[in-house]
Each structure stands twice: as C-alpha cells, then as structure tokens.
C-alpha cells in the first residue's frame, strides 16, 4: 500500500548523506598533505616506509630485538662503517684503529669533540660500558677476553685467540651513553622512549602508532653534514600497502621488495625514480642434511646441483633481480676475494642434466622401473625441500627446483609450513633439505665457518643455530684459524683462496644465488642517493651504511 508521505524520509536521508559525502570530500581534499613538488621548502622530512612494522610502539632500545627503525642508523652510531658495495671502511666514531700483529687485540682511537645529544661528552668509558652491557644482555663476542679504556679516547680490546675478523665485528657495535644506561635498573626491559644518542637525528617528535619523526641532534659531532631536516617513518601492514605508498610518490627512500619495479615504480617518473639491487646480501643456498643418506655423498650433492638451472631460478623466483652463485660460494659482495682460477673451472654449479645423470649413475643410484632412482637401501630417491611459507620468492625457488629434479629421476616435494616450524626443524636436524640463508659479514670468514667448520657442527638432536647442514671439514678449521691469525691482507687472501678451493671440492651446501640488497629512491625532494655509479653506501635503510646516506643527502629547494 503505497503512500506518498512514507517516501519522504528515505529521500531526506539520501539528501543528507550526499551532503555529508560532499563535505567529506572537500575536507579530505583540503586536509591531505600534497607530498609532491609543493613541499620543497628545504625543511621537508625524508619519508621512509616500513612494511615489517604494522604499527609503531615507542621502543628505541638498541638491545631489544624489536627496536624501532633508525635506532641503530640515525640515533646511535658505531665506531666504523663498512660498505659492502665497494668494500670501503669509513671511520665514524673512531678516527683510527690498530690491529696487533699477532691478531690478539685491536686498539680503537675515538675522535675528539664527540658529544651525546644531551651535551655530555662521548668518551672511551661509554665504549667500555656498551660492550659490557651488550655481553651481559645478549651475549656474543665469545672471542673477546676484555675491554679496557687506556685513556679518555683509546680503547683496547683483547681477544682470547687470534681473530682478525674481530675488527669489523667490534667496529659495528653501536655505542650507548653510560651516564644514561647505568641508571636503569632493568636495561633489557627499558623502552628508551626519549633516546640520548650520538647520531644525526635523535629527537623524537610526533610519535603515533602510524608514524614518527626524528629531528636533528642539537649536539651532533658533524653538524655540517646535517643537511636534511629530519626523517619520517611510516608504518604499513606488509609489502603491498608499502609499495602502494612508494609508487604513489609518498615516500623518498624505500627498501622493501617491489615486484616488477621498472614498470610499476620507475616508469611513472623515470627522471626522478630509480633502483639499485647490488648483490651484497647473504648467500641463499640449498642446504642438505649431510647426516642423512644420500646427502652425505658429495657426488650426490654435486649431481643435484648440476640438475638445476640457476638462471631460471633467478629469473622466475626472484624476478631476475638476483645473481646466480658459483662454486666458490661467494656472493657479489665478496668479489674482491674471489679466486678467478677456482671460479672459472666450476663445473658442478653449471646447468648440465646429462652430467648430473651420469654422476648419479656412477655413484650407484640406478633408476628403477618407473624412472625414479633408488637409494642404496632400496628406498626410492625422494625427499622434501622445506621453506617458510611467508617467503613467497623462496617458495617459488623450491617449487622450480622440485620441478627440475624430475629430469634426473629424483622426486622432491616442497613442504612450506610457518618459518618458526622450519627453523626448529633445521635447528634439530630434523629435515631433508631446505632453502636457507647463510652468514654474512664484512669478510667471508663467518660464511665459511658457518658451512664447513667442525667447531659449529652439532649432533642431530642437539639444537644449533648455525651449520644446519652439519658438515665439518678439519681442513677448513685450519684455513679459518690461518685467516683469523693473519694480520695482513695477503695472508687473509691466501686463506680465503684455500677455503674457496675446499668449498668447491666438498660442496657442503649447494649455493643458489646471492640475496640482493633491495633499494629504491625518488629524488624529487632529496638528491644524493647512492647508485651503481656512486656506490658510497647501499640503498638499505636497515644496515649500517644508512647513516652514510643520511649525512650525504641534500634537500631539493624551490624558490
């Protein structure tokens, strides 16, 4: 039963809601910050997105595993900064250092005139205190026997064994002020909401769960290098919303993974936007549990390595951004260490299905009636490849490998539970194979130690956090001690040459590709980003070289 009066209410409601929408649109347009060219006053903030922090909790404690971004890059500083892109070391809080000829100690000399952001002086006492606190709270530095301040500006680090890689390890530790941290009763549970640091941007402002700003340190030791007004961090839930903000031009510097970066990001504004993915991340490898047959047979490892096509893997799994590894196991970051004679005679890291089949036949793994090979105990040659489900690119890699192994009569299934389950399996030795990272540091020492040293091998059932392949070669131990003991570059190079040769012989893991260091920039508002042509740092916001970028960038000013 229709009645005209009954219609008025909905029409009125519709009109009212239209008016509301209209005012919202206008209000929204007026209120939205236009992050494009209108903001070039010289005081604009360097905007960086973080996809791994869905919201920010105010925690600037450098000893916490969840410290906020830029804590170790803009607020606190280390004694030296090592740049893996060009292998150069920049003295930072320390002006110089001296490694003893027996490799059992290092002496650092701090610069003069260093101050904290509250005006107090930064001295050797702070360095000594920092290392003590770090060891107490988080452990590590097992080679360090003692830290002593020789005077207000010199610190002596004594080791309990010769350890030349210790220089970079110690130099990378961020230094905290003793006069603040010695007053805190429980440093591990302290959130450090208003940090006092030595870095260029220490003053926290406008802290909210979705963003915060870091403004200039009023007592910075290189005020001439504080060109930019400050840094702004934005929180996002994962790659996709962070990528959207980056593509829309809301950020200046981003280092999350952006798929198909050329067409989605760069092509929107090719004059100002760019990316650079130097191969200086850690090596991604196919780790095999060498305590289980047939992976204890080096010929099996080498044959399986020849059965996979690394160029397909990097093209499809990593969008072509990664570089295939060779039989030295060294990533692009260690190019200076690479032994060209070993690298050029690599055979087991080249794609060669015929050779793989031949090697497996010769090793005694004959094919069964259904084409699948059999192990020495009669079981079919099938195993699992474990990888964490959250890493979609590594999951693709595992699937490609499983597919390619069919050509050599081997059956592989990919198992992809949560990363914590996978890591537990690796730690216990309860797995067949997996796609795993490797140790990454300033020198190849930690990498080779992590894959070949007997010192890192634990029996199955005992938890380990390193050497998941549980392979040790005593020859590697000898070479590693030689490296640690040598104080000259020539001596270290000789040891690394030997390690590369040994790696190529033993194939403790199957190297796949080097993890690229993601990084993209937009220089509409800031200029001076590192590029392949000017590799003074990497484009990562999360590693030590970020402070080099922060002190080099200049804001674009339009008048």
């Amino acid at each position: 039963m229709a009645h005209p009066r009954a219609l008025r209410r909905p029409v009125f409601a519709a009109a009212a809601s239209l008016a509301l929408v209209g005012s919202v649109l206008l209000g929204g347009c007026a209120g939205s910050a236009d992050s494009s060219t209108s903001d070039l006053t010289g005081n604009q903030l360097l905007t960086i997105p973080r996809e791994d922090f869905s919201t920010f909790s105010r925690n600037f404690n450098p000893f916490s595993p969840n410290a906020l971004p830029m804590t170790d890059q803009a607020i606190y500083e280390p004694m030296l900064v090592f740049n893996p892109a060009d292998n150069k070391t920049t003295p930072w809080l320390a002006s110089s250092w001296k490694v003893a000829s027996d490799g059992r100690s290092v002496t650092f000399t701090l610069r003069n005139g260093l101050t904290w952001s509250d005006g107090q002086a930064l001295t050797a006492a702070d360095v000594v205190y920092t290392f003590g606190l770090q060891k107490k709270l988080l452990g590590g530095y097992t080679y360090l026997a003692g830290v002593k301040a020789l005077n207000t500006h010199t610190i002596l680090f004594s080791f309990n064994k010769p350890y030349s890689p210790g220089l970079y390890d110690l130099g990378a530790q961020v230094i905290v002020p003793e006069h603040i941290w010695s007053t805190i009763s429980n440093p591990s549970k302290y959130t450090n909401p208003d940090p006092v640091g030595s870095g260029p941007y220490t003053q926290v402002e406008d802290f909210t769960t979705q963003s915060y700003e870091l403004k200039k340190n009023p007592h910075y030791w290189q005020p001439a290098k504080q060109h930019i007004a400050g840094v702004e961090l934005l929180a996002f839930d994962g790659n996709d919303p962070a990528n959207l903000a980056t593509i829309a031009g809301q950020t200046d510097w981003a280092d999350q993974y952006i798929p198909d970066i050329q067409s989605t990001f760069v092509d929107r504004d090719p004059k100002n936007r760019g990316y650079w993915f130097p191969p200086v991340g850690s090596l991604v490898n196919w780790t095999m549990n060498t305590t289980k047959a047939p992976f204890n047979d080096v010929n099996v490892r080498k044959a399986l390595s020849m059965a996979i096509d690394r160029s397909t893997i990097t093209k499809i799994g990593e969008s072509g951004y990664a570089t295939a590894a060779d039989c030295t196991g060294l990533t692009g970051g260690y190019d200076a260490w690479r032994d060209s004679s070993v690298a050029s005679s690599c055979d087991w890291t080249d794609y060669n299905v015929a050779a793989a089949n031949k090697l497996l036949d010769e090793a005694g793994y004959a094919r069964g009636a259904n084409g699948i090979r059999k192990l020495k105990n009669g079981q079919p040659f099938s195993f699992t490849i474990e990888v964490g489900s959250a890493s979609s690119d590594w999951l693709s890699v595992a699937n490609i490998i499983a597919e390619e192994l069919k050509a050599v009569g081997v059956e592989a299934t990919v198992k992809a539970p949560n990363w914590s389950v996978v890591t537990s399996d690796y730690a216990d030795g309860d797995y067949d194979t997996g796609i795993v990272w490797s140790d990454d540091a300033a020198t190849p020492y930690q990498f080779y130690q992590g894959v070949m040293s007997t010192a890192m091998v634990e029996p199955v059932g005992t938890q380990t956090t390193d050497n998941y392949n549980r392979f040790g070669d005593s020859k590697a131990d000898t070479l590693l001690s030689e490296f640690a003991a040598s104080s000259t570059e020539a001596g270290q190079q000789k040891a690394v040459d030997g390690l590369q040769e040994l790696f190529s012989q033993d194939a403790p893991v199957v190297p796949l590709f080097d993890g690229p260091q993601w990084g993209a920039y937009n220089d509409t508002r800031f200029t001076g980003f590192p590029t392949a042509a000017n590799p003074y740092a990497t484009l990562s916001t999360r590693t030590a070289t970020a402070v080099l970028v922060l002190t080099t960038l200049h804001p674009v000013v339009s008048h």
Partner: protein
Amino acid sequence: MRYLLRNLGFYLIAFWTSLTLDFLMPRMMPGDPVSRMLAQSQGELQPDQVTQLRHLLGLDNRPMWRQYLSFVHDVFTGNLGVSISRFPTPVTQVIGSEIGWTLLLGGTALLIAVIAGNLLGVLAAWRRGGALDSVFPPLLVFVGSFPYFWLAMGALYLFGLTLGWFPLNHAYDVTFTPGFSAGFITNVISHLFLPAVTIVLVSIGGWMLGMRNTMIATEAEDYITMAEAKGLSPRRIMFRYAARNALLPSVTNFGLSLGFVVGGALLTEVVFAYPGLGYQLLSAVQALDYPLMQGIFLTITAAVLAANFLVDLVYVRLDPRVRVR
C-alpha cells in the same frame, strides 16, 4: 533480578573456560618465538645469544601448571605481560594504542550497516514486490558476496589512486596532530570513508535480508491487521508496531557483531594500512608472541561476553515476554 544473577553466573563460567582455552591454544602451536626471530635475523644471531634471548623473554621451561596459575593471577591484576614480538613493550600498551582505531572503524561500519540495512529491510518488506524489494536484496547480496579484499583493493585503486578522491592509507595525514579540531576530524573522516564504506557494502545485504524476512513474518500478525482496521497511518504502523517487533532478532545479532568489532578487520587494515588490532593479531600469531596473542584473545572474549550480557539486559527491556519466568 534472579534472572540477571543467573545469567551473570553463566557468563563467569564462560569467561573462565575461554581463559583456559586462551592459555592452552597458543602453546599447542608448533615452534617457538625465538626460532621465529632467528629466521628473521637470517644468520645474525650467535648461538649463545639465542639462549640469552630465550631467558630474556621468559621462555625457559617452567612447568605448564605454574605458567597457568601465574597467567590467571596476572589477568585479574590487569598485568597482561610483555609482548615478545614488540619486546619490551607491555601488552596493555600495544593493545591500548590501537584499540581506539579498531573501535572507530568497526563501530562506524557496523552502525551504518545496521541502521541502513534495517531501514532498507523495513521499507522493502512494507512495499513488498515493489521496486525497492525486487532490486535491492539480490543486488546487495551479490555485492556482498564479492571477496572482500577484491572489493577493497578495487575501491582503493579507483577512488584513491586513479581518481585521487580519497587518501591511500593510514587513519589521518601525518601533518595533523591528533586533537578535536574540525580539520583533524574531517581528515579522519576522509581516511575512514573508503574502509568503512567497503565493510558496509559487504555486510549490509545480510542485515537487509534478515530484517525484511522478519518484517514479513511480523506483518502477518493479527495486531497489524487490527491497527490497519483502526485506521492508523501506514507509516505509523510500519515503524511503531511492525518494525519494533521485528527488531528483536537484529538486536541479538547486533550484540554479537559488536563484540567481534574488537577483533579488528584484518583485511581492511592490510589493504588500507589502517592501524588496528586485526593485523596486530595476525603478526602476533605469526611471531608466536604468546602474551600478545593471549591479550588480544582475552580482549575479544571479554568484549563478546560483555556485549552479549548487555544485549541480554536490553532484550529483557524490549521484549516483555522474556521477563515472565
């Protein structure tokens, strides 16, 4: 009164059961938080650092019953512990910093969907067979059955990126400081618009259909015929007699949905980068952050139970038939 007390008793038992489940479930998941952190650090943690970390986070093996007792004690003293994935931020701080936005987004979307859906349902039922009734229920259900993230991403791409009518992310522009100024409030509304509208679109169909069906059943009642015979205006009958009685099932549903608003809208938060508890819960589960997971589950449980209790109270007021026991 006795009815209320008895209900309260049931609610307390429900609360205690959910408390126990809340404690057990995270611990039944395989893996442990430190392994997860290790995977994330990708080879940068030394072996003795891992042991130290375990000790720091309180993950040494205390017996389960002891953990349970201290958990129950902590809940009743308001100490929800320290989050592992956001160590050392206390859980109450993590939840407290985001619950406001969760309630704003979920509450607004729910209210709009309920009011608009019920209104449309009432009108559709009253003019059954008319244009409104024939077009809207199937249309809204059709729109509602799209996968939500597809709808949300499509809306964001069209209205946010291509047309530029709405902001792309976050709850308000970083240039504003939170406060009760007109500028800030309009900014918050402009950021809230797309997320809320997409949630409303997928949920309104259900409310409309439910209300419409209940209305049709109510219209068949004798007292409606009596009111028409007595000469009351159709609008008065529709709103003051039929709709009021048909509202009762909606009230129950509203109560249930209100409790779950606290759980956050995960997909909305991810697509629109809106701060809230939904994604917080997901990342807590992925990181096996027991205290934070427990804290959020507890908040959801408490909110659902409280909302249900309130609905029970309101229901007694609305429906006299319930009072007579």
